[in-house]
């Protein structure tokens, strides 16, 4: 920055420093971010108020110099890093940037920022830049948090203000600071993005390292175990895409009837899977269909609602199923995605379609079996039986018993993604100790209680489809994985029993964020484009290539034209007003008229040129404006004399009007 006239530059104190408004706004956003993440609802608002007060009041504290505060910031940084380093002696290295240290450091920086605003500073120092840099550190500290719900909203605001501030400040130091700021922000964002997507990153890493089975990743297990947590709940991976007659529905995959030691069986490898023909899966003529596309790889199950009328797999599919449970239905060939099939929805909620096999006597006994015997783990089951009798022992019909059991579970147990299994049988502990647990416990408990009440029941896993993806479309994610019960009611057949409280159902989950949806849209778009491209023949490829080249050419041409048009418009806008500060109104009107004439002729004079120079340049150009250059020279000479010369008798304006009139008359409108 050029210094003003004096050659011997002296250190002069600037009377007052007020950061420009974008800097102030960026600092306030960083305060809000840190306030939310550090839960510092008392100190940060107080600091923000102090900063605003510095903007309002004119008093300043004693002067300090730039290197002093830089050294102070360096000291603070050293303290911060030494804290992190000490911590890393005892814990793994990922604890280096522990939020417990980052947030106090951010608060120290926020205090420093306020001090900078209240200090008297020498003139010519990079004042606002310093404040902006500290606000960036405060924001980065605030963004390093597990409470990241607000960051997607605060980060764009911060970057906008920081960008505006940098554009506003400019100057030679700005580039260096901008790079520092960008590095800081990008580093913070990458860390945040990694934190948010840690599940996906872990999964992809595992996939690269050992090609792990994705069974768990999609939320379903071949051998469900009543564990203490349900981790799959967080995964956003899309598993199924539904199109057609969509409504909330239970899509079953696996059915189990044997319970032992907190696990359901039979295991996948103990089942007798038999081939099944598509004809056996379809009881009725295909009517209205629900199209399901399985879009996750390495998964071979066909998901379908219990009460569907029929299931139409893709032509040529070879299917297997467990005839006893009518589930799982497995596509024998492979689990390559996407795999599409159709489901014909049931006529009613009780329709007994191909997936509802009648219950023979042998299987009935299995569906009424309770864990017991000498195993000490099951010593609490008599109490479970008593509980079941208390709940529904006096009720007459099985349906009433089912209803009562569901109501009991919903009323006496709370939903929780984590559960303390305790010693002994986790299911008995859950039922008798009134614990909170997840859907697997509720489903298992419903099965056990109903079996105690002589209602044959079994345990089912699958997905609860609920998320709309547009009209007539749904999407099912791994986090929608669910467990429920199926009961056999005499005279009615198999019915779905949903015992999980509404707060624990997948549909109670927050919808995916905008960023997740946008990313999926891009994935789908890319997949469609890739599929379309791979289906093209060489001839079509050549044709499309030529068309694309032509389109690019046209687009570039159009962009050039648009740019020229914009430049021309800007030139016109720049000359739309005439810089006239004289007091003679008549002369001002004449100046505007002359400028308007030049504009109409397509030769507006740029604001930084004099008319004289412009006319001289036009005279040297052939076929330029339809301007009578001689008359224009006369006009300019007289105008300049009247405008800048000694004030005359007032007749100059009339003479000028006459000349301008002649000019306008010979020029086309």
């Amino acid at each position, binding site marked *: 920055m050029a210094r003003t006239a004096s050659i011997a530059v002296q250190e002069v104190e600037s009377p007052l420093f007020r950061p420009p408004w974008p800097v102030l706004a960026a600092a306030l956003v960083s305060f809000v971010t840190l306030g939310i993440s550090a839960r510092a609802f008392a100190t940060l608002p107080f600091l923000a108020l102090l900063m605003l007060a510095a903007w309002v009041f004119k008093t300043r504290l004693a002067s300090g110099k730039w290197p002093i505060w830089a050294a102070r910031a360096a000291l603070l940084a050293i303290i911060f890093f030494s804290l992190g380093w000490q911590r890393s002696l005892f814990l793994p290295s990922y604890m280096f940037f522990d939020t417990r240290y980052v947030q106090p450091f951010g608060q120290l920086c926020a205090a420093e920022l306020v001090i900078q605003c209240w200090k008297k500073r020498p003139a010519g120092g990079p004042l606002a830049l310093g404040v902006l840099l500290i606000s960036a550190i405060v924001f980065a500290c605030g963004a390093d948090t597990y409470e990241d719900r607000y960051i997607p909203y605060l980060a764009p605001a911060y970057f906008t203000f920081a960008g505006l501030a940098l554009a506003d400040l400019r100057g030679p130091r700005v580039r260096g600071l901008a790079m520092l700021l960008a590095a800081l922000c990008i580093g913070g964002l990458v860390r945040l993005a990694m934190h948010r997507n840690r599940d996906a990153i872990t999964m992809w890493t595992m996939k690269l390292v050992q090609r792990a089975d994705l069974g768990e990743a999609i939320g379903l297990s071949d051998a469900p175990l009543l564990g203490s947590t349900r981790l799959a709940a967080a995964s956003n991976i899309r598993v199924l895409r539904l199109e057609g007659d969509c409504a909330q529905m239970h899509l079953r995959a696996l059915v189990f009837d044997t319970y032992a030691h907190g696990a359901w069986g039979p295991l996948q490898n103990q089942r007798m899977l038999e081939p099944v023909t598509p004809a056996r899966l379809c009881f009725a003529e295909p009517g209205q269909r629900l199209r399901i596309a399985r879009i996750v790889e390495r998964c071979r199950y066909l998901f379908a609602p219990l009460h569907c009328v029929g299931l139409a797999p893709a032509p040529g599919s070879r299917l297997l199923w467990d005839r006893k449970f009518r589930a799982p239905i497995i596509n024998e060939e492979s689990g390559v995605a996407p795999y599409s099939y159709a489901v014909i929805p049931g006529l009613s909620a009780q329709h007994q379609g191909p997936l509802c096999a009648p219950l023979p006597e042998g299987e009935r006994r299995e569906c009424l079996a309770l864990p017991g015997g000498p195993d000490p783990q099951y010593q609490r089951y008599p109490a479970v039986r008593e509980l079941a009798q208390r709940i529904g022992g006096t009720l007459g019909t099985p349906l009433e018993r089912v209803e009562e059991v569901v109501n009991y579970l919903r009323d006496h147990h709370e939903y929780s993604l984590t559960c303390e299994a305790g010693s002994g049988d986790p299911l008995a502990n859950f039922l008798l100790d009134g614990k909170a647990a997840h859907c697997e416990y509720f489903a298992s408990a419903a099965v056990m209680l109903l079996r105690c009440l002589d209602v044959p029941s079994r345990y089912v896993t699958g997905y609860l489809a609920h998320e709309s993806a547009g009209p007539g479309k749904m999407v099912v994610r791994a986090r929608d994985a669910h467990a429920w019960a199926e009961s056999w009611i005499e005279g009615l057949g198999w019915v779905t029993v949903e015992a999980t409280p509404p707060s624990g159902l997948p549909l109670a989950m927050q919808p995916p964020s905008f960023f997740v949806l946008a990313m999926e849209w891009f994935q789908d778009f890319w997949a469609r484009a890739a599929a379309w491209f791979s289906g093209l023949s060489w001839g079509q490829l050549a044709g499309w290539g030529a068309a694309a080249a032509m389109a690019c050419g046209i687009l570039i041409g159009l962009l050039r034209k648009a740019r020229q048009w914009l430049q021309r418009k800007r030139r016109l806008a720049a000359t739309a007003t005439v810089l006239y500060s004289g007091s003679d109104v008549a002369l001002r009107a004449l100046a505007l008229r002359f400028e308007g004439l030049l504009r109409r002729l397509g030769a507006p004079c740029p604001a930084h040129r004099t008319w004289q120079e412009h006319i001289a340049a036009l005279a040297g150009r052939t076929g330029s404006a339809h301007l009578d250059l001689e008359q224009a020279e006369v006009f300019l000479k007289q105008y300049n004399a009247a405008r*800048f010369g000694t004030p005359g008798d007032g007749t100059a304006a009339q003479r000028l009007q006459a000349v301008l009139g002649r000019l306008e008359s010979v020029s086309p409108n």
Partner: protein
Amino acid sequence: MTSDDFSQTVRKIEDNLARVIRGKAESIRLLIISLLSGGHTLLEDAPGTGKTTLAKSLARSIDGVFRRIQFTPDLLPADITGSSFYSPKDGTFEFREGPVFANVVLADEINRTSPRTQSALLEVMSESQVTVEGKRRHLPLPFFVVATQNPIEFHGTYPLPEAQLDRFTLRITLGYPDAASEVDVLYSQNDRHPFETLASVVSCQEVLALQEHVKSVRFDKAIAEYLVRLAEATRSEPRLRLGISPRGSLALYRTAQARARTLGRDYVLPEDVRALAVPVLAHRMMLDTKAKYSGVRLPQLVEEILEKVPVPR
């Protein structure tokens, strides 16, 4: 003095100089503008382009005292301003005037002397006076310094201090003549150098009258504001370490008046300011180190600033 007298006198000087310096009408005009505005001129170009000849010709055109100082590395400040000598005759100290006591001073190859000696010119150029041994001595009026320097050479030269550069009203670059003019130069010096037959065409009193007459040229406030906006633009230009001083604004103000008068106008136009911006402003500014080594040149920078500041209508 009437406007006609003014134009006639100026034309006489122009014609006189044009006899010696061929094809350089614009440079001659700028030199005369500098003289009329009461300032000083720095002639800068490669060796052999006629800098010294032009300065000498102007000096001879004015019927006044002309002194030439050949700036050498061993020159001392007292060699310029003058000093007191002991007179054994009457036992007193007698002040012997230095070469600056003249109407036209030619400071030839000014950058070959040390900044210490160059500093002797600071007071001389800005205040037209010399202070030696606590006594102030006024210089004869008109007082006009024409300095020449060769910007190509680095060995044995000292760059002029910013304070001194700021005291030169105009920096004129002569440049090589065109082919026709150069042929003309060859023939004109066939028998003898035209400088030898050059006679004075204007007296010191006439020059002073011309300088006074220039001050009567009308300078509209809108143009003054335009001039200041240009100066401010140089001060806020990030590529510059040093912008234009108020002395620079004043120089542009006065030279614009002189230009307007030489062109026969009694009022200044924005064109006058724009035409003189490069010779008056460029040498007063200092480039930022980064800009200097990235190929930015000051005249181009002034042109860029002229392209940014709107002109009053």
